[in-house]
């Protein structure tokens, strides 16, 4: 019975078959194992980098920590431009339930109409849409309290301007990417921007950092704060008076530059039309010209104001004295052209002081011709014309004048350039040259950035002497001649540049605008440059008003703007008057 229940021993062929099956099974398992091992080898070794990166991407997230952009301050420490953190409200459109109701709740907090919020929410059918940028902390808290579904608040920063549009073109614009596009923002972008940091952290499925996960922070380096030489009060005065002057003259544009003649520090640079930071179309194509700083990037023919330079050359070389006389016949034919005075008077012998007082083109041309190109242009060089000033604003123009041998040179150019025709200068170059007369003959390098201070950055700029352009004696003589210009009156009425109680030195200029086909007779530039008090100058003011309609003359248009600015600055500087009035 036992034998009958025991299974029969496998026979040889059956055993072989079973073994064969076992071997096949083993071979399949071994094959699979090899394939699996191969695949594992491929993943773990060959494609290690790729899969490690994918895994890291899944679990790790790198977030850029933006650096705080430095503050730009006025000379007295007032912040002119500062980056302030705000919050932005975003909505995931498909997760917002009742759009109308959400818009009604948000509108009063955001300070916009319900229609506006609703139209933003309906601007997309899916995905994320920005509802509002730049929410204050209070507004953000109120939004949070609403507990609206589908809305997220994200931290953002915005460049803010506590003084409004004061010195807007000097400050410049920062693009949406946080990069300075113009003015100081562009020129000192590396100093102001700082270095962004980063945070690597293990994230959960909601992309939130896991509290017990591994994380690493590379902290950002904040940008340095920059202090300008711009005096906020002087800037405000300059902008206000320029705006009034441009409006009264129905002019196209205008520029005012105020310098400290002792140091070369720019105290104010005002422009009209001016850049408005709060313009919603700030980056529109038509606003691009306003990104320029016309005082350093645009050249013009200075006209009679330039006679100061010719006169300085004559006095310094000893060819003339203020009392030296010249025949002013009203016109002067030289080489291929004829120099004419703007105002015709009977021919008479006039002194060099009178050449400036009456703004005689003929007198200045005579002097230029007597000096000759080498000496005259040598003084153009000494006053810094034809060279960049080196100011820390991008696009500093060098200007130009024609020398013998230059393409198109005509001997008449010598006479014309003597009274400021055919010479291209920037308003800043002209102001710097007059500052040299005001301070006793020293050409100073203009500068607008006084210091920078921040992590790893600390520097301070002071006055830099370029060269002694003329001697103190010549500067004194020229100052007296310029005082005589302001004191001079042909019709018995005081000059519009005169300030009661003070001795003011100055010179008017009216120039035509050069076009590719010649001079536009119906378009002029009126300018005035002067300084006060004449015996201890505290400031140089250059006023330039372009394409005016009310009157073509610098005396009528630019001089009153100068006088109004100068009067306020004399009070501001507490400059004692020269005489009681």
């Amino acid at each position, binding site marked *: 019975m036992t034998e009958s229940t025991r299974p029969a021993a496998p026979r040889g062929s059956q055993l072989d078959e079973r073994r064969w099956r076992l071997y096949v099974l083993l071979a399949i398992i071994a094959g699979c194992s090899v394939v699996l091992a191969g695949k594992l080898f491929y993943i773990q070794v060959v494609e290690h980098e790729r899969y490690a990166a994918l895994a890291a991407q899944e679990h790790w997230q790198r977030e850029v920590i933006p650096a705080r952009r430095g503050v730009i301050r006025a000379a007295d420490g*007032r912040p002119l431009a*500062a980056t302030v953190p705000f919050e932005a409200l975003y909505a995931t459109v498909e997760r917002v339930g009742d759009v109308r109701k959400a818009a009604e709740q948000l509108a009063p907090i955001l300070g916009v109409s319900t229609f506006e919020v609703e139209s933003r929410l309906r601007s997309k059918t899916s995905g994320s849409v920005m509802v509002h940028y730049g929410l204050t*902390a209070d507004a*953000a808290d109120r939004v949070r309290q609403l507990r609206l579904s589908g809305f997220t608040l994200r931290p953002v920063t915005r460049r803010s301007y*506590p003084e409004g549009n*004061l010195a807007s073109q000097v400050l410049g614009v920062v693009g949406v990417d946080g990069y300075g596009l113009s003015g100081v923002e562009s020129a000192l972008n590396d100093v102001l921007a700082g270095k962004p940091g980063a945070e690597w952290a293990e994230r959960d499925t909601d992309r939130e950092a896991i*509290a017990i996960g591994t994380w690493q922070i590379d902290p950002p380096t904040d940008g340095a704060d920059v202090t300008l030489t711009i005096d906020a009060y002087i800037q405000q005065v300059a902008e206000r008076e320029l705006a009034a002057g441009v409006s009264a003259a129905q002019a196209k544009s205008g520029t005012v530059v105020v310098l400290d003649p002792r140091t070369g520090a720019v105290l104010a640079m005002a422009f009209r039309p001016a850049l408005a930071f709060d313009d919603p179309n700030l980056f529109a194509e038509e606003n691009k010209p306003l990104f320029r700083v016309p005082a350093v990037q645009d050249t013009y023919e200075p006209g009679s104001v330039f006679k100061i330079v010719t006169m300085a050359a004559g006095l310094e070389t000893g060819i003339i004295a203020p009392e030296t006389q010249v025949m002013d016949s009203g016109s002067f034919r030289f080489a291929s052209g004829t120099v004419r005075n703007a105002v015709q008077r009977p021919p008479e012998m006039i002194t060099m002081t009178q050449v400036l007082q009456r703004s005689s083109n003929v007198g200045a041309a005579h002097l230029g011709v007597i000096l000759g190109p080498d000496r005259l242009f040598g003084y153009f060089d000494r006053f810094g014309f034809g060279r960049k000033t080196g100011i820390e604003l991008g696009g500093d123009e060098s200007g130009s004048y024609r020398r013998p041998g230059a393409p198109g040179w005509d001997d008449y150019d010598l006479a014309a350039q003597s009274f400021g025709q055919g010479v291209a200068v920037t308003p800043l170059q002209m102001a710097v040259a007059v500052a040299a007369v005001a301070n006793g003959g020293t050409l100073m390098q203009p500068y607008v950035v006084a210091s920078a201070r921040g992590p790893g950055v600390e520097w301070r700029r002071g006055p830099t002497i370029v060269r002694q352009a003329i001697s103190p004696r010549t500067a004194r003589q020229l100052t007296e001649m310029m005082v005589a210009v302001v004191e001079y009156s042909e019709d018995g009425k005081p000059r519009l540049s005169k300030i009661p109680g003070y001795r003011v030195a100055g010179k008017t200029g009216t120039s035509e605008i050069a076009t590719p086909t010649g001079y536009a007779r119906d378009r002029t530039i009126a300018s005035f440059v002067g300084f006060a008090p004449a015996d201890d100058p505290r400031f140089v003011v250059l006023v330039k008003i372009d394409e005016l309609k009310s009157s073509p003359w610098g005396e009528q248009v630019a001089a009153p703007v100068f006088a109004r600015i100068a*009067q306020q600055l004399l009070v501001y500087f507490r400059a004692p008057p020269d005489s*009681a009035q």
Partner: protein
Amino acid sequence: MASSARAYALGRPAVARARPTPGLLAAMGLAILAITGLIYISQTSSVANTGYDIAALQAQREQWIRRNDQLRLEIAKAQSLAHVEREAKTRLNMGPPARIVYAPPPSAGRIPPPADFDAPTLGERLASLPSAVAGLLRGRAGGVGD
């Protein structure tokens, strides 16, 4: 009976103590493992909670920094020249001077009295003498206020 019980206790051999069974050992092992696990989980959970608390505090801190920076901006705006000028014009009814007059500086020596100044009489001077003396005694110059 008590003595017999003591005798029994004293006479109890050491080998009679029960040996832990494998089941008991496993149970003890599991219990230790569970306790260790619980401790680990509670520690981890505590660390996680602390981590989230820190994250919340950091967010709160950032909010306060934001608020602070925004307040600084508000202060700067309130101190801006344009704002001060607007306030001076609208609230204080101030305006720029219509005309600036410079008075002649006094020549060396005494400052001349204004034209409408009435000089004190001898009687008035004598009457003011006691107060002048009292002022001197107090260490002040007579007739000069603070």
